[in-house]
């Protein structure tokens, strides 16, 4: 419980209105705007309260389980809050954590460790940052994030006796039924799209709508909100290759005569209405396709093709879709606007956050007294 208290105190340093650690990360992150980082950390740490941490520990830790002494966490991607939870969860089990930082985000883990050092030097010392692949062979548990080839390569180095968890890259969607008031929900969907510039596996890579009328209404409303977010949640740094990809994205829409709406004089956002075909190109960097589906069956057929890669769905006004989303492999359904802010106890890839690291140990002796 000592770790829990210290983690809570460390998170408090990120949570407050003028939290210096959050501001520092917001200003230092190379990939995202300060506004995006600020919202991401504020919203997530607001959910990761002491009670939430304690509830998670109560539900998942028991005396019959043995925690790993050491866990290697191989990070990929660039989402600070994903880094935070990946580091904090093994700490909650009592393990020490060896963190291999992602090339796209070297700063989040560094500052998180520093904030833990500041409240509990002993707990901070249990976090080690580095790039030593030998740790994959030495730790009791390995949690690897990355593309499928990366995970395969890491898995090969991990001894069979160690716990291995691989979190591959995935994508998420929003699904809106006819009963949705698009005017009400467009702001929330736009926030999901804009957060982390759509780079996260919790970012919607497309929006499925029930019917084409919902799609058209959403496109117009979403355009207004994405334009507004250019100021409120400005985009971050996009590479030359990414910008080139956006030009190609837009060009394809023009060449094929696909209905679309886009930011004028910038590449900040594009919304298109496209057929839900197997060859559909998913969106990123605030370039988002809307797929009108006539009914649940059409939507479900498309989702089934995406099955191994689906992570989260924001669902609104279309309750019939819930079971289809779960069948398609979706591990989390949430409200629009919350896609990027999962609770600390969410089941990433359907796995229990702490228990996945533990091993059961049975003591079958009779009690003598």
């Amino acid at each position: 419980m000592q770790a829990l208290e210290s983690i809570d105190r460390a998170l408090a340093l990120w949570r407050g209105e003028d939290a210096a650690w959050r501001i520092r990360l917001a200003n230092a992150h190379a990939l995202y705007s300060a506004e995006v980082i600020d919202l991401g950390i504020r919203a997530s740490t607001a959910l990761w309260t002491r009670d939430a941490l304690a509830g998670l520990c109560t539900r998942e830790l028991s005396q019959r389980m043995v925690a790993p002494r050491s866990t290697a966490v191989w990070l990929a991607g660039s989402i600070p809050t994903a880094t935070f939870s990946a580091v904090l969860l093994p700490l909650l089990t009592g393990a020490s954590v060896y963190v291999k930082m992602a090339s796209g985000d070297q700063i989040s883990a560094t500052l998180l460790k520093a904030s833990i050092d500041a409240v509990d030097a002993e707990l901070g010392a249990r976090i080690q940052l580095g790039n030593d692949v030998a740790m994959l062979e030495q730790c009791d548990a390995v949690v690897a994030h990355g593309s499928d080839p990366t995970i395969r390569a890491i898995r090969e180095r991990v001894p069979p006796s160690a716990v291995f968890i691989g979190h591959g890259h995935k994508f998420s969607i929003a699904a809106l039924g006819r009963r949705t008031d698009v005017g009400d929900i467009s702001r929330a969907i736009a926030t999901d799209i804009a957060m982390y510039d759509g780079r996260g596996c919790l970012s919607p890579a497309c929006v499925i709508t029930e019917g084409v009328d919902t799609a058209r209404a959403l496109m117009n409303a979403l355009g207004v909100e994405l334009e507004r977010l250019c100021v409120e949640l400005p985009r971050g740094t996009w590479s030359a290759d990414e910008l080139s990809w956006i030009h190609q994205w837009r060009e394809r829409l023009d060449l094929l005569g696909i209905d679309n709406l886009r930011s004028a004089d910038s590449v900040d956002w594009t919304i298109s209405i496209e057929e839900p075909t197997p060859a559909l190109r998913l969106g990123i960097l605030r370039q988002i396709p809307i797929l009108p589906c006539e009914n649940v069956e059409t939507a479900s057929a498309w989702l089934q093709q995406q099955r191994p890669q689906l992570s989260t769905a924001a669902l609104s006004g279309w309750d019939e879709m819930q079971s289809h989303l779960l069948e398609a492999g979706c591990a989390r359904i949430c409200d629009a606007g919350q896609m990027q802010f999962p609770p600390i106890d969410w089941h990433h890839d359907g796995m229990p956050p702490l228990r996945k690291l533990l091993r059961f140990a049975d003591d079958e002796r009779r009690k003598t007294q």
Partner: protein
Amino acid sequence: MESIQQSRGVRKEIERAILLLIRRGVDAPTDDAEFDRLARILFAYQYTSNAPYRRLCDSNGYLPDLVKHWTEIPPVTTAAFKAARLACFEEADTQQVFRTSGSTTEQQGELHLDTLELYEASLEQTFGAYVCPEGSRIRFMVLAPTLEDVADSSLSFMFDRAVQYFGTQQSRFYVGASGWNPEHALCDFKTIDEPVAVVGAAFSFVHLLDAFDTAALRVALPSGSRVMETGGFKGRSREIPRDELHGWIESRLGVPRNRIVNQYGMCELGSQFYEPSLIRGSATTTKRVPPWVRTRVVDPELLSELPTGDTGLLVHYDLANSGSVMAIQTSDLGRVHEDGFEILGRAAGAEAKGCSIVADQLMDR
């Protein structure tokens, strides 16, 4: 029917003028007024005859009447050749299709041609000037399959024509339909007693040099030999930096760096670009732009032209692309110099910057 005839007439007329320009050679004075005139007539023709391109132009407000200079002609990206058939003629009139290399699951880009006249003329002028400047025939050792084996490869087409124009009867292709045959190549390399032109894709040189190392072989190709390498490595061999590859060629084949020519081309373009190492007598990384082509560097986001020396995306305006789209925006980063342009790599990042699977796909394209 009449408009199709008229359109064909316009095309013939402009192609005649472009052919004259190409045949004046790579060292002919660069007349910007002439290029501008031809480019704008060609754009107007392509706008009229190429439906997907017209849609793209209309969506962005680029109409032939509003384009007052060739620099205002809207380019298509190389990816557009995957998304649509960008041709100014009926499918039935297609004489040749070049396809981009790629995995079987990946959609390939296609350049459709109804005539090879400009393509061949451009190839003959540039290849001749930069790879065979002496004007005499030379024995080719081609590290690529023949055109019969890979009918849709622009690389094989180029080497097929190069051998026809400049090769001796001893010239040979060393990659067959079933793949690479290092034994034949090594055997020939050991006995070469005349200057040769060893040509192929960069990844083919990696395979060749691996075979050299396996056989512990080093040769010194006769004086006057040269190497031309082109293209990248993606998925075909391990990646080797250009400098290392050239050093390797120098040490295994005995061809000095000032006789190694890098060619830059792409399936979607009718013309190619060469480093003038052979005619300068010294190695260079600057590629020459022939008089019937213009190359600009644009800002990756705004697509506005960047000053000479600044780094951005390369856009080529190639009059030899008469039957498709003449203005092609690449994903290659480069900078323009007074005497050509330099490639600074593809705009791709080393690692996907996110955990979305879409970020992986973006980097893999």
